[in-house]
């Protein structure tokens, strides 16, 4: 058994040198771990195999000897038992073909051999009732036997045993087999470790090559998915992150373009007015009027910048830190009150259906501004006599705020782009506005992990803000 144990740890011995250097690399660490687990399981397998075969045979032999022993001892028991009967039984058994391999020796009190197939008392057998495995000479042939001696009543001694040459052969075969298996396991363990390490390295290399390409500016690259569950999870997370980065980059690009294009118009207008006044203003009043209108234009530009900054601030997510548990019911009634007067002034009908409670974890001011933007839009695009609906309710854990008008609406093709900064639908070209209102509403909704959806109100626009409700 000792030999097998040594086989099992052979792989362990090979791993010892340079262990520290090995574990510095994650790939090697995994490989070593794999080999270690492989070696341990092999050892366990070998040990259990050894016990279940050799152990079983050994126990069977011991049982057989024991029962033989009991039967013979019983014959020697007084009052009717005597040595001669035992000797006779032994003689019968030695001759019986069923008992080939059985070993007996009976000596009387004086140490003289009475019966049995052993030539002499085996050397080394000194204690009674103890198991011995000794070389013996049996009918002239040398062999190995498992033996047990016992003192019979009257001072005679009896040895009962079994020839275990066959068992020893089995033992040798099994040992050799296990040595070979152990060797194979070491080879397999090392090969497996190398394979695992190279797989690991390949997966990491894919990620690092792609990441490096992305870092160099190729944002269209994505990590491969389908390598393995854990790596897929990582790849999906990284890909999501890249998607977001690329969306932000697009946003920045688009906004810079839009700023360049859309702000040029009001700047040009203000500049023209001022230059015109400087050159042609006939009176002080003309000059004053021109300057005032230029100031208005500039204020409009400032307003655009403020809205842009506001959106950027919201999208950066820093305002989440100020989130609190709020109920929007009163907030929305206040908005209704604020805008109802304006709607009536313009001959519009504002219809509000606000169902309490509307619990949300968020920023009241931002929600106010989002709803105000939607109401501003609705008022802007409604003609006298039309109805504007403001409704809010809690449904399936979502607070839904709807602002619906009966104006021109947004064409289905434009609806997806309507929340982009500076986007202005064809129908809105001739109205005042910066094209930032819905972008801000959308940013507010997203900050609250919610959505802004635009639907056709047949006719008109139906804007729906969905905010997850606070539990």
């Amino acid at each position, binding site marked *: 058994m000792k030999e097998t144990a040594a086989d099992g740890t052979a792989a362990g011995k090979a791993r010892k040198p340079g262990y520290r250097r090995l574990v510095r690399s994650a790939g090697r660490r995994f490989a070593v771990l794999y080999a270690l687990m492989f070696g341990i399981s092999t050892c366990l397998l070998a040990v259990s195999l050894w016990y279940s075969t050799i152990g079983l045979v050994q126990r069977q032999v011991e049982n057989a000897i024991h029962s033989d022993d009991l039967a013979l001892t019983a014959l020697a028991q007084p009052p009717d038992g005597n040595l001669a009967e035992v000797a006779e039984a032994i003689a019968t058994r030695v001759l019986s073909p069923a008992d080939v391999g059985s070993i007996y020796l009976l000596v009387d009190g004086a140490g003289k051999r009475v019966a049995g197939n052993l030539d002499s008392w085996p050397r080394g057998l000194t204690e009674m009732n103890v198991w011995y495995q000794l070389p013996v000479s049996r009918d002239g042939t040398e062999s190995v036997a498992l033996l047990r001696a016992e003192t019979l009543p009257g001072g005679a001694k009896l040895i009962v045993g079994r020839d275990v040459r066959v068992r020893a052969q089995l033992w040798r075969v099994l040992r050799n087999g296990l040595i070979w298996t152990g060797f194979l396991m070491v080879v397999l363990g090392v090969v497996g470790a190398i394979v695992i390490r190279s797989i690991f390295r390949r997966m990491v290399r894919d990620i690092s090559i792609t990441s490096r390409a992305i870092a160099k500016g190729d944002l269209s690259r994505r990590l491969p998915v389908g390598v393995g569950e854990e790596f897929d999870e990582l790849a999906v997370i990284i890909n999501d992150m890249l998607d977001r980065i690329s969306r932000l980059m697009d946003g920045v690009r688009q906004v810079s373009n839009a700023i360049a294009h859309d702000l040029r118009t009001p700047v040009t207008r203000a500049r023209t007015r001022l230059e015109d006044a400087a050159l042609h203003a006939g009176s002080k009043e003309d000059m004053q009027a021109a300057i005032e209108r230029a100031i208005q234009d500039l204020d409009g530009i400032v307003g655009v910048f*403020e809205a842009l900054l506001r959106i950027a601030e919201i999208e950066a997510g820093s305002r989440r830190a100020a989130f609190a548990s709020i109920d929007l019911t009163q907030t929305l009634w206040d908005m209704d009150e604020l805008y109802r007067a*304006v709607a009536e002034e313009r001959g519009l009908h504002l219809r509000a259906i606000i169902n309490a409670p509307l619990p949300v974890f968020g920023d009241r001011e931002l929600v106010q*501004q989002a709803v105000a933007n939607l109401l501003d839009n609705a008022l*802007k695009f409604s003609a006298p006599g039309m109805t504007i609906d403001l409704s809010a309710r809690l449904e399936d854990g979502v607070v839904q705020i709807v602002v619906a008008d009966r104006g021109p609406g947004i064409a289905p093709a434009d609806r997806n782009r309507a929340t982009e900064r500076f986007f202005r639908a064809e129908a809105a070209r001739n109205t005042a506005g910066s094209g930032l209102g819905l972008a801000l509403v959308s940013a507010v909704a997203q900050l609250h992990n919610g959505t802004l959806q635009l639907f056709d109100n047949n006719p008109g626009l139906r804007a729906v803000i969905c905010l997850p409700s606070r539990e």
Partner: protein
Amino acid sequence: MRILVVEDDKDVAGFVVKGLREAGHTVEHADNGRDGLFLAASENFDAIILDRMLPGGIDGLRLMETLRAQDNTTPVLFLSALGQVDDRVKGLKAGGDDYLTKPFAFAELLARVEALTRRGKMDGPMTRLSVGDLEMDLLSRSVRRGEQKIELQPREFRLLEYLMRHAGQVVTRTMLLEGVWDYHFDPQTNVIDVHVSRLRQKIDKPFELPLLHTVRNAGYMLRAEEV
């Protein structure tokens, strides 16, 4: 009123100082934080207009914190290019009384500064407000003009209360949005004008002398005499 302007930008400072003097105020100016702090701590002012970002090692926030630490309660209006909500909240939390983002209209600045100094004087509990023959009882929440009782909606009452507390001063639309509705953004729609005109219908329409005046390019003012 004595007003201290701490502002490093020459153009902005010159413009503000000139405007405030034209409005009849005495103005001191400092162009860095250290001088500003020295002036603010050594002399008495009715209000301080303070830029957030200042040269000289002491920025606006530090300056004000130092003042407040010395139990100086002079009203402070922050003037800043840092317009994000966080910046505003930070400025107000540190002890500022109002916050105005650059660029600004001078009318807005003037109205706010005058409102600030007024706020300081109105510390005692008031139960009645009156402008001309318009009277407001804050306890019974009733309004009457002359002999006639005027019925107001709760929001109209608060709007009128705000105007009466700032009687004789220009009140801008933004101030009304913040003070009456607690909204800190500018709606695209002229919501305030509509509400003010509704209030005007109730308090001015049936009477000979108008009290609620529109100040062009600035806002509104409630006063008994003609503007």
